């Protein structure tokens, strides 16, 4: 599904290399987690994959189902099935959450040459999915992320994910700022979406989230590279011993 090969990325504005030859492959249906200390380049990876401005790829490639991702505009990547759940979801004053969602869903459908959802079809779907995430009808009417609590913002990201049904979901520290209940809701939302043709790349600082969303593979990232990959046990190892040993080993 997602293939990243020897990816080198620097900031556009300054001469600072962030990713230094990162390689990673997430096959269809698998959940991969990326853990790593602050400043290792985890968020940069998620932004570069989803097409945010400000980064320059100096070497390497990334593809989704064999299609070169890096040449696509962000909206083309989205229509191709890539989704990023933001660490800090953005507020859009004056734009109703529902309007935003429907515009997004139909923009993608249109880009893929599918018929747009009618108001009725859309409403039915969004209400059902919102209920599963305990998102109230009132929250659907509020402007996108404006005045949402941390937990509401993250649940809203998962609602968008559910509505857009992407094949490759990247979650950037979705667990940050969540209390136990919110974490459970978010995880249940994600687990409900797991399927043989959908993959996840879960970026997190803590093992905690991985108790709820069980990964197939765990990668440890440091200084712009994957330094170690392994099974779920690797996350537990980090939880107990910290990154110190792993980093020393990599050096």
């Amino acid at each position, binding site marked *: 599904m997602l293939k990243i090969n020897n990816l080198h990325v620097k900031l556009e504005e300054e001469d600072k290399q962030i990713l230094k030859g990162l390689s990673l492959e997430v096959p269809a249906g698998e959940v991969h987690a990326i853990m790593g200390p602050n400043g290792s380049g985890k968020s940069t990876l998620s932004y570069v994959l989803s097409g945010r401005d400000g980064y320059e790829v100096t070497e390497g490639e990334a593809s989704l189902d064999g299609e070169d991702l890096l040449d696509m505009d962000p909206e083309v990547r989205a229509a191709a099935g890539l989704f990023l759940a933001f660490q800090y979801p953005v507020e*859009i004053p*004056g734009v109703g959450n529902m*309007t935003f969602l429907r515009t997004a869903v139909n923009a*993608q459908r249109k880009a893929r040459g599918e018929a747009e959802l009618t108001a009725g079809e859309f409403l039915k779907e969004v209400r059902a999915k919102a209920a599963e995430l305990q998102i109230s009808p009132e929250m659907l009417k509020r402007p996108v992320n404006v005045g949402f609590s941390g937990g509401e913002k993250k649940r809203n990201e998962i609602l968008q994910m559910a509505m857009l049904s992407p094949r490759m979901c990247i979650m950037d520290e979705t667990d940050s700022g969540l209390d136990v209940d919110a974490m459970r809701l978010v995880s249940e939302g994600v687990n409900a979406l797991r399927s043989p043709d959908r993959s996840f790349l879960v970026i997190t600082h803590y093992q905690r989230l991985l108790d709820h969303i069980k990964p197939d593979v765990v990668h440890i990232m440091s200084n712009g590279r994957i330094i170690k990959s392994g099974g779920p046990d690797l996350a537990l190892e980090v939880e107990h011993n910290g990154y110190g040993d792993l980093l020393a080993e990599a050096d």
Partner: protein
Amino acid sequence: MTGTTDLDVREGVDRETVETVQNMGSYKYGWNTEIEMEYAPKGVNEDIVRLISEKNGEPEWMTDWRLEAYRRWITMTEPKWAMLNYPEIDYQDQYYYARPASMQEKPKSLDEVDPKLLATYEKLGIPLKEQMILAGVEGAENAPAEGRKVAVDAVFDSVSVGTTFKDELAKAGVIFCSISEAIRDHPELVKKYLGTVVPATDNYFATLNSAVFSDGSFVYIPEGVTCPMELSTYFRINAENTGQFERTLIVAEKGSSVSYLEGCTAPKRDIAQLHAAVVEIVVLEDAEVKYSTVQNWFPGDEDGKGGIYNFVTKRADCRGARSKIMWTQVETGSAITWKYPSCILRGEESQGEFYSIAIANNWQQADTGTKMVHLGKNTKSRIVSKGISAGQAQNTYRGLVSMHPRATNSRNYTQCDSLLIGDKCGAHTVPYIEVKNTSSRVEHEATTSKVDDDQLFYCRSRGMDEEEAVALVVNGFCREVLQALPMEFAMEAQALVAISLEGSVG
């Protein structure tokens, strides 16, 4: 536009915006109707003023009123205080009167109406039934109406070509006709109110209008009557080098109410064209008038060539106690906009509201705002202005809030927000506040922001292209004002916001 359910409208608006953006060129109404026109000679002088008056079959008092205005006008100088830059206007190099030759005699049936005029309205999206009446066909009023009724008065260059639903309105006692007809058929009303809100001596452009106005709309709502349908006037400038000077007069008697819409378009031309309109509104005791404008005159091309110079004086006089006026404007067109719809709050507890979206893209310049003049006790006003600048455009909000000594316990709230797209445009806010009593309260809030890259990326990462994303964010910024518009206009306005900003990013 009609027959949509509430749900469809609420949820479908953005999709419509998006489709509109994708399907249209940058100025949708830029085509020209090749039609045989009858012009008065170029330039303005007493003979031209007399000629216009004669063409309209006006009584002598009207001719004299015009001439007096003209004599005043030649002693005046053009105001230069606005933040607008444009080449000197040669007032003698304009046509002041143009009408389709086929309108010399009113057509009796659809077959007699110039098919080009019919096609013009069809292209502007005015429904067939209305179209028939619009083109001046007698008897078409009896055909069954489709959807929701909106009575229309259409002004093509200098003349009104027709008014719809007149009979039905007449049953309710409402008079809705062209101002030239009103001068002929209801001289007592016109005489009583014309020039009492915007005097012929008011300002350079209003005075010129008083001398040469060729047509426009007249509305009279009798005491206690709620107008049974929306009224609207559709202005189209078609002829080249022709100024349009329309005059609208609305009188709402005690306890009456009316909602009035105004739409404007013009063809693409290299040479700038002048538009100087006057709107006067008289609101008596307990009456309510809602006046909405979607102004989409040709804004000039991407290099700033051509476009309409729009110098407009609009004023409402809330004469009666508890009377209410609400101005809503969506200004997306014109190369130059000079416009300050005002409220004179004379009656006790009268209320004035002003909701505005002004968009300036490419080389457009807008200097617009409002005046709230509080004269009566316990009067209230509210101003919500949203200015959007893109390209090299300059957008100025200029507003006066004045609390007179006798306007005790009065309130004003002003919210003035500017949004910048790109780094070559400008937004300016010039509030004038005068408070001459101690019990009144004035609040002013202003913000300036830029379209945020994070917002655009967020939208795009969900599948919207850049223009859809900008349209969505800007429509969100304008939401409070869009909500103040009647439903039919809100959708059109939302689409317009998107079109006006095409090419402003990237």
